[in-house]
């Protein structure tokens, strides 16, 4: 049976016509003549506007030059095979033969603030408003708070003022019970949005599930394994190599024990938020993903065993066409690179995308305008054919979303899905001369950056290079805003003194006090002998992991969590043995 699947898979990756050009030479000669004729008319109009047509040139937000109009010969070099069909290698036009015809993209708002009970109320509320995952299953996209990200507990002195901020105050197996009790773990998908505390977070969830009698192979969800983010995110982190090894260790564990679990998230969104342009986002996503995949192979996994559980979180920002072409380019490039790595099952070549509409381009000025921006972002992502979406709320630049703003973000998706009619046709922009040309252009430029990273020893060996590239792009972006060559309505154009008075969310200050009390009570009341044994085992497992042993780390951390070790305690062990340092 498996044999049959893999034969079919190999067929799927084969070219369907074998490099046949799209157009005949006679046709292309004619369209080139057509362009000359058009150009003379365009130039005449330009001169009427006082513009010298010879110097006239527009660029995308990434700086790619674009023509005023595109013709068939602009995509003549492109063989038919690179376009192919939805659901067929190289997946430029989409991952599956059906796009949104039978199931729309999943609406996955990020939720998380205050105490677990407060987050749970928001989960239940948004679900009542139509937040839904794949196949009608419940879906929760949950973000942990800053204190957890730092790998400390809420009673640490530096946690003051940050407990339950930007995420939920969940630090133990017990907190998981407060969050999930009463929900059917087997019929839901839960994304644990965590940074480098990822191992502790999974340990708590697995320990909690086991106490509830739910087998781990029935759990659906996602661990992020975002260690590569330390290249461009200003948070304390593990050094690049141990970070990558931690990811591969967890990917290996989940591959063997949790077949429904998504093991790795390639977070292009964070790159673009930090300042990367669309081309860099594609290049660095690819580079990080392939580098980590190689580590998994080096640790004994076969590509078709684990690549199908890799996922992507991609930004959708302001440059409408560039952003959607970026996604089409990324799909094609990832498929090719995974094929080269040895993948043959189409699922191992899929770029499953959760779109996160850009937060960085949203403005604190005239905040309601952001609803218009996010609608355009979501619309572009839908045209590109992504699998899931989170639409940033209009108050993103001000605070954690209010219930009202979170609901409106959900409505943006629902209106596009159910009123605009765009879900009828897969890859509706496929074949557009412009869209295909720009997709090709992004692919070409991203490949140059990818090759440069590879030349430098792969992603984990050149975090500084990645950081420098992204930072230079961030400076360029801001300079353009200041010079008004990049327009931000309400910031550098159509500025208004009138203040839009919107409600701003504030985390209940009591939550911090309660979270601190809870963690103190947990430490006081737990079975100390059991905790000590489990912590000693966790230390030994970490030492063995550091020495190269494979497969022992996650189970040891689960036992620690079962013995009521906190996130801060579990992370303390990892930090002590693997290193923990400033991001720059």
């Amino acid at each position, binding site marked *: 049976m498996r044999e049959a699947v893999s034969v079919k898979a190999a067929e799927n990756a084969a070219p369907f016509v074998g490099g046949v050009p799209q157009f005949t030479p006679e046709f292309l000669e004619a369209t080139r003549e057509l362009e000359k004729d058009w150009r003379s008319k365009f130039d005449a109009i330009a001169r009427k506007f006082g513009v010298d047509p010879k110097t006239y040139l527009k660029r995308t937000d990434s700086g790619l030059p674009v023509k005023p109009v595109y013709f068939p010969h602009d995509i003549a070099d492109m063989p038919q095979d690179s376009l192919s069909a939805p659901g067929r290698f190289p997946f430029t036009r989409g991952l599956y033969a059906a796009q949104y015809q039978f199931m729309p993209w999943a609406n996955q708002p990020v939720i998380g603030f205050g105490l677990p009970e407060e987050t749970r109320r928001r989960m239940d509320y948004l679900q009542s408003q139509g937040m839904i995952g794949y196949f009608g299953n419940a879906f929760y996209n949950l973000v942990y708070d800053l204190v957890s990200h730092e790998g400390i507990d809420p009673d640490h002195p*530096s946690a003051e*003022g*940050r407990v339950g901020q930007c995420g939920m105050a969940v630090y133990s197996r017990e907190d998981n019970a407060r969050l999930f009790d009463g929900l059917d773990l087997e019929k839901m998908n839960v994304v644990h949005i965590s940074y480098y505390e990822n191992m502790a977070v999974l340990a708590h969830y697995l320990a909690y599930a086991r106490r509830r009698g739910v087998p781990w192979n029935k759990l659906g969800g996602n661990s992020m394994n975002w260690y590569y983010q330390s290249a461009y995110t*200003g*948070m304390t982190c593990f050094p690049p190599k141990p970070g990558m090894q931690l990811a591969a260790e967890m990917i290996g564990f989940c591959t063997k024990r949790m077949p429904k679990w998504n093991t790795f998230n390639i977070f292009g969104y964070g790159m673009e938020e930090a*300042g990367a342009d669309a081309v860099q986002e594609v290049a660095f996503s690819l580079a990080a993903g392939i580098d980590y995949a190689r580590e998994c192979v080096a640790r004994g996994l076969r590509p078709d065993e684990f690549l199908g559980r890799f996922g992507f979180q991609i930004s959708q920002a302001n440059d409408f066409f560039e952003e959607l072409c970026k996604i089409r380019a990324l799909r094609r490039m990832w498929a090719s690179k995974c094929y080269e790595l040895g993948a043959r099952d189409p699922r191992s070549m899929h770029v499953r995308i959760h779109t996160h509409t850009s937060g960085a381009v949203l403005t604190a000025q005239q905040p309601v305008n952001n609803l218009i921006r996010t609608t355009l972002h979501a619309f572009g992502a839908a045209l590109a054919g992504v699998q899931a979406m989170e639409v940033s709320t209009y108050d993103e630049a001000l605070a954690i979303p209010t219930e009202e703003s979170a609901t409106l973000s959900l409505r943006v998706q629902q209106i596009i899905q159910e009123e605009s009619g765009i879900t009828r046709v897969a890859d509706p922009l496929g074949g557009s001369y412009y869209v295909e040309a720009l997709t090709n252009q992004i692919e070409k430029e991203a490949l140059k950056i990818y090759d440069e990273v590879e030349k430098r020893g792969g992603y984990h060996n050149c975090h500084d290079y990645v950081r420098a590239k992204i930072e230079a792009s961030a*400076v360029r972006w801001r300079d353009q805003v200041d010079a008004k060559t990049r327009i931000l309505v309400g910031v550098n154009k159509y500025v208004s003194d009138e203040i839009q008075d919107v409600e701003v969310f504030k985390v209940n200050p009591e939550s911090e006090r309660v979270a601190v009390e809870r963690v103190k009570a947990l430490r006081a009341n737990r079975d100390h002998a059991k905790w000590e044994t489990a912590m000693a085992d966790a230390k030994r497992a970490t030492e063995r992991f550091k020495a190269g042993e494979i497969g022992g780390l996650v189970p040891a951390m689960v036992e620690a969590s079962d013995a009521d070790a906190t996130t801060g305690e579990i992370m303390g062990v990892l930090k002590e043995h693997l290193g923990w340092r*400033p*991001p*720059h």
Partner: protein
Amino acid sequence: MDQRIIRVVLAKTTMDAHDRGVRYLATKLREAGMEVIFMNFFEPAEILDAATQEDADVIGISSSVEGHLPVAREVTQHLKRNGKENVLVIFGGVIPDRDVDTIKEMGVKGVFGPGSSADSIVAFIRENVRTPRVSFE
């Protein structure tokens, strides 16, 4: 005839991933001829240590994730206790309107929210930096 170089400690908490603005500002202050020490901090005392060691004229703190009140309190109180009120303290990032007056009362001189131009911050520092320069021993 003021040739001395203004020294700025720019800091953000390690817990805050939102460093795009403050890193941009670091670049712009350097371009404006200032000396910038950029740091991540875990506890506010680290900012004060750095300011002492680097003899800073300005402490700039970026916060986009709440937690600014205890940091502002500790930094300004420490400066007052040590007679260093003339070290200019500014904040940037996302400081909710409701807290701006509170941290100004503590002794924070400037608060620069989203969209503030780097030029306006350079100008503010030049206008408000302590003079004559007093050593931060």
